[in-house]
């Protein structure tokens, strides 16, 4: 979020679309990632666009009762729901498809000097990726929003449409199940 966000917000409220773009560009990457969790990567761009358009319409009424990020994730959640309902095609798991999984990036760990450690870490990333597919959708999403996308509990609650308490409970259970799955290997 830009340092001059208060000024940008005021300008965006009065119809300055450039100010709006500047204000929200910093969140776009994370929002895209969140949308990927909610509706899958193929439709994520559409959800992000609709989220920003709805935010553009509603920003004059933004009351600052929550942070802009949380507010935006709440809109994203509603857009994702609308999207899913309108398409009626949410039979498949919204986690990544095999093709997308193959494109998952495996960033090198700058702190790792030894090749065996790098290999071990890469293997664990793959194991965790497979284990995530064995979790329920809600558990997998909440884990990724928290640990991969770095959202706060309040932001996850807004993005998933549940209370922060439920988020904490889901995180706890999801991580426990993930560990159990990994231990069985």
């Amino acid at each position, binding site marked *: 979020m830009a340092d001059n966000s208060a000024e940008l917000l005021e300008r965006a*409220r009065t*119809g300055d*679309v450039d100010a*709006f*773009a500047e204000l929200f*560009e910093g969140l*776009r*990457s994370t929002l*895209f*990632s969140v949308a*990927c969790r909610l509706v899958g*990567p193929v439709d*994520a*761009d559409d959800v*992000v*666009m609709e989220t*920003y*358009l709805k935010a*553009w*319409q*509603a*920003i*004059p*009424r933004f*009351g600052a009762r929550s942070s802009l990020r949380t507010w935006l994730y709440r809109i994203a959640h509603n857009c994702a729901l609308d999207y899913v309902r309108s398409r009626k095609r949410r039979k498949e798991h919204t986690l*990544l498809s095999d093709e*997308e*999984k*193959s*494109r*998952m*990036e*495996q*960033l090198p760990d700058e702190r790792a000097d030894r090749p065996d450690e790098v290999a071990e*870490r890469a293997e*664990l*990333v793959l*194991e*965790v*990726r497979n284990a*995530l597919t064995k979790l329920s959708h809600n558990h997998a999403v909440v*884990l*990724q929003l*928290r*640990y*991969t996308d770095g959202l706060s509990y309040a932001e996850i609650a807004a993005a998933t449409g549940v209370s922060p308490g439920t988020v904490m409970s889901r995180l706890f259970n999801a*991580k426990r199940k*993930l*560990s159990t799955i*990994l*231990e069985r*290997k």
Partner: protein
Amino acid sequence: MKVSDNKLDQALARQKPGVEPRPADEFWADFKARARLRTQDAPARPRQALAWVTPLACAAALVLAVGVYMLSPPRDINGDVIKSVEVVASHSAVFIMEDKESKSAIVWIVDMETDPGNGGDT
């Protein structure tokens, strides 16, 4: 495979989607074209403009409560109940009768001893 919490967190942090968002220029050009077709909502009314509403509502509620109290009929005697009567002088029986019509209670003490020459027996 036993995995420490720390390693698990790191592995989760690396589960990025394989797709990237569109380039910023392209995305925002598209956004601006679409935003032109949508009207922004009217701004929310500032809270200061409604600041007088709460005290006014409280005052109105207070006036209403006082009015209801003042205009309500006096409390019915049936609301007060005589639970016991202590008669110091000797007597044979005590009857308590409540008359709803006159909203009064009658206490009848039978055979109560009174001073000689007073004459009455109740």
